[in-house]
């Protein structure tokens, strides 16, 4: 396949090396944190009684912060790599962000494993400052500061992306396609979906990380000066706005791999159109406004916020189901597509994202949330998005770029093992939620333990499948010429 060497694009030699680093680190950390997840489910199944509550909650914090951060960085790599085809990005900024992220990881892991910090990745105020002896103020400060450093790393890359987009397209709004959507310019079907998605991610995640920075700084101030005690509901709003936006931006970044690679397999174009642009504008607005669906059990909030949370929770799924998932299926239909590890993973990713909408939307209903909130239904639905959505998209991207998707029988088998394990794992979470099994419990009652054991077994399959796909990629990656796309 011919590669693009336009003068507005990032030179080919500069595009690949840092992306390789992001991918290699991402795949290794994904596998390691999957193992942590398996250990947690085994502990809940009482198969691993050596993990006491203190270690369990440390591992829970590590798994949450680690997976969110790693998924964010891996999806950022997808976004950066493909956006660099259309605008000139600075690889040194991208490398600098990776180094900064590694510093952040060291701070976060140190705070958890040495300082025993275990307030969960959402560091829900005022828990970090109220450990009752479980961890010290220093550990909490290190964790919170680590997240802040990670946020700075993301913002640096977004600044570079934003400047590059504005240099080529004139404004972020033009990159998002607003003039075409509103009839001010004719629809240019050659306008890359990647640029539209990147503009959306920039808008929402800069806002999300900014809110995150505010709440992180407020948490640090409270840790140092306990008398400075912000309002708990305000802090909760900021935390969930940040968390929701960040993880959504991760998904919308990762799906760029589908937009770019699937058309090559199907030998059909994925073009922008007015419905496509309308969907991305709608998603931009809804991702910013939907977060109150995390706060449906906070009755102190105004009722209109709960109603907005429920309605936007539903409408947020429509662009995914109507535009991206439908568009992907239309692309595949009667295309004679070659099914290999990469194409299978990308379609699996699209499926995980689309199917995860169902339990998410249902839990976003106020009357359902009343009995499902903070049960294992919640990790059930977000594992569909992340484990069967984002992870296969990143693995598919790595497989295509690292080995052109040709991973032979082992690769295809790995995808099968991964898919079976991941679906089973998510279903055990949903069944647990329907049985009112709480999330984030170190010790489970006997009646719930079989679900924990089944979850651990399923997680083991996920890990084996991931290793079957990722290890050959990792071995080829140093020599791979990532110039196919």
């Amino acid at each position, binding site marked *: 396949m011919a590669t693009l060497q336009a003068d507005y694009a990032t030179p080919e030699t500069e595009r690949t090396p840092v992306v390789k680093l992001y991918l290699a680190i991402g795949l290794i950390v994904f596998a390691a944190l999957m193992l942590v997840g398996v250990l947690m489910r085994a502990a809940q199944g009482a198969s691993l009684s050596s993990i006491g509550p203190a270690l369990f909650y440390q591992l829970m914090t590590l798994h949450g912060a680690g997976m969110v951060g790693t998924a964010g960085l891996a999806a950022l790599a997808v976004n950066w790599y493909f956006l660099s085809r259309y605008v000139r990005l600075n690889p040194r900024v991208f490398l600098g962000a990776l180094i900064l992220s590694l510093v952040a990881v060291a701070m976060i892991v140190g705070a958890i494993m040495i300082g025993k910090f*275990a307030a969960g990745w959402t560091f829900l105020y005022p828990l970090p400052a109220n450990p009752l002896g479980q961890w010290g103020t220093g550990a909490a400060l290190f964790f919170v500061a680590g997240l802040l450093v990670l946020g700075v790393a993301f913002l640096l890359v977004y600044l570079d992306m934003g400047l590059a987009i504005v240099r080529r397209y004139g404004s972020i709004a033009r990159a998002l396609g607003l003039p075409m959507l509103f009839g001010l310019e004719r629809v240019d079907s050659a306008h890359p979906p990647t640029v539209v998605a990147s503009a959306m991610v920039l808008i929402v995640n800069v806002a999300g990380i900014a809110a995150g920075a505010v709440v992180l700084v407020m948490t640090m101030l409270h840790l140092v000066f306990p008398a400075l005690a912000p309002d708990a509901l305000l802090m*909760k709003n900021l935390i969930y706005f940040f968390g929701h936006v960040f993880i959504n931006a991760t998904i919308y970044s990762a799906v760029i791999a589908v937009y770019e690679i699937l058309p090559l397999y199907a030998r059909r174009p994925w073009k922008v159109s007015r419905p496509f642009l309308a969907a991305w504008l709608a998603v931009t607005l809804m991702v910013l406004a939907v977060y109150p669906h995390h706060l449906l059990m*906070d*009755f102190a909030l105004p009722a209109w916020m709960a109603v907005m949370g429920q309605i936007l929770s539903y409408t947020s799924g429509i662009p995914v189901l109507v535009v991206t998932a439908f568009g992907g299926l239309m692309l595949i239909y009667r295309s*004679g*597509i070659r099914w290999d590890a990469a194409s299978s993973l990308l379609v699996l990713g699209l499926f995980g994202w689309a199917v995860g909408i*169902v339990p998410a939307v249902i839990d976003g209903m106020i009357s359902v949330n*009343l009995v499902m909130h903070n049960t294992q239904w919640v990790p059930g639905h977000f594992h569909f998005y992340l484990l069967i959505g984002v992870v296969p998209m990143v693995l598919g991207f790595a497989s295509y770029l690292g080995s052109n998707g040709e991973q032979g029988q082992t690769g295809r088998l790995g995808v099968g093992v991964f898919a079976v394990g991941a679906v089973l794992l998510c279903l055990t979470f949903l069944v647990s939620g329907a*049985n009112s099994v709480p999330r984030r419990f170190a010790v489970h009652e006997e009646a719930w333990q079989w679900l924990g054991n089944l979850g651990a077994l399923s997680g083991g399959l996920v890990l084996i499948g991931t290793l079957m796909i990722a290890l050959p990629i990792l071995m080829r990656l140093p020599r791979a010429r990532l110039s196919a796309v």
Partner: protein
Amino acid sequence: MQTAVLLITLLGMALVAAAFYVVVARSGPRDDDYSGITQQGYLIRRWWFLFLCGFGVLVSAWSLIPFPLQAGGVGAPRAIDVTGRMWSWDIASSSAQVGESVRFRVTSADVNHGFALYGPDDQIVAQTQAMPGYVNEVDVTFEQPGQYRVLCLEYCGLAHHAMAAEITVSEGS
């Protein structure tokens, strides 16, 4: 309710899975007339979009009118104050009668907790957040006799899983 929610969810997910299966199964042989496929696809997509919008309006109206949350659905219930603290519940009264309506007024003395009321069948009946500086009210009408349990559903540290209390609901005299 939870079983119905699970079944509806599985049905919805099965429909999405079926759509993917059908398309993947028909991914070959290649049809080079992609514009013909897109023309047909856009028509289906338009109806799919309209269906999702219409379905959303109906479900939203059905589930939001009357407003399903918070206190106020029951006339003059007995108020019970609840305070969560690491890692125990302080409940002003731990007994009630079948058919009795109770308004739990829930707060926290330290960090965020989750007040979740489990029925005798170990299924969640109702819940709300216990927050420092706020009082959340939730109304519950006890429909079954037996031991109800209160568990914490918002992670609150080392003994979060052990933060439990009981409420006894007896048959009315």
